[in-house]
């Protein structure tokens, strides 16, 4: 009986060692955290990234924190204007103007509901015309 108990203790030690070795081996082989992104509607990721501030470690989540609608693309999809709504009412709904920079969309204006009329000078005509006609530019 004592003999058998010792055998079980040895077996337990071997199994624990095997698990520890497996975890260490996995950690060495993979080396770094594996990131997998959840499927989401177009522009969701770029909009969420534009809400990251300073050393914040969290990003807003589509459906939980914000929703998007009325995406309008301009200038061969180099520019996009999209309406951003807050699910938890953390911020006022407004439009976000994004431009493709280095292959990715970057937020360049907003989100907001009123922008300076001077953006007519610096935004492409198609974008400023849309913002003006939608009532987002004021003098």
């Amino acid at each position, binding site marked *: 009986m004592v003999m058998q108990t010792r055998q079980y203790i040895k*077996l337990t030690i071997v199994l624990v060692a095997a698990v520890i070795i497996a975890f260490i081996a*996995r950690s060495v082989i993979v*080396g770094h955290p*594996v*990131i997998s992104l959840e499927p989401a509607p177009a522009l969701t*990721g770029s909009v969420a990234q534009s809400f*990251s501030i300073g050393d914040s*470690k969290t990003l807003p989540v589509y459906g939980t924190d914000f929703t998007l609608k009325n995406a309008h693309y301009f200038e061969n999809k180099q520019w996009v204007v999209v309406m951003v709504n807050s699910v938890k009412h953390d911020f006022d709904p407004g439009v976000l103007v994004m431009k493709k920079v280095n292959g*990715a969309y970057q937020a360049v204006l907003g989100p907001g509901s009123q922008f300076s009329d001077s953006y007519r000078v610096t*935004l492409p005509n198609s974008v400023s015309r849309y913002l003006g006609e939608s009532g987002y530019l004021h003098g």
Partner: protein
Amino acid sequence: MDNTGSRSTLRLIAVLISAVILAWCVYLIVSAVITSKTTGILVVKSVQPKASISISQPGHGAQFIGVDNATVRLKPGVYNLATYVNGKETVTTANIKKGQTTNATLDVERSFTIPSVDDVEFQNFNFILNSGISSEQMSGLKLDFFRYKPSAKVIAVDSGSIAQQPHNPDSTDPFRLDFRVSVDGKILKAEASYAGITDISLKLTDQGSGKVVLSTN
């Protein structure tokens, strides 16, 4: 006999548990090898400190991956990298390939920004306001200067140069103010013509060459 039977059962359970644990260990290692062979490594750094780094993909959500720098494994594909610091966001893309390491750097000083008239520092414009134009005309005048150089940092009126031009009270001609102005250090001659409380136009002439550089008539 009963004792021998229970020992055999115990041994069988121990063997089964051992087999499951060992199989799980093998799975951990095999899946790690498969992951390392089917993914690539992204090494991303921010030039500015305290910068939150995130990644996203078209048709996918975004995820925070680190502050200042990050090293992660990703499935092959093109990813959008972004950082936001000091009120500026900058983005770039990284193409992740199987078994390869891709390096990327994010620098918000290279961020794309759209200039606004609100970004310009207008100096001594109050002297023009005191010369009789309305605040609405002043906004129009600033917008005209912004039209001339949207990237201007400082536009300064030479307050001593402001001269109201003669105006016949019986005519409907606009009033005119002449003054010198410095646009980021470049000296220009300005002629502001205004009528009523909203109409205003600006003509800018290069002081050196005498060439008209802006006329909003």
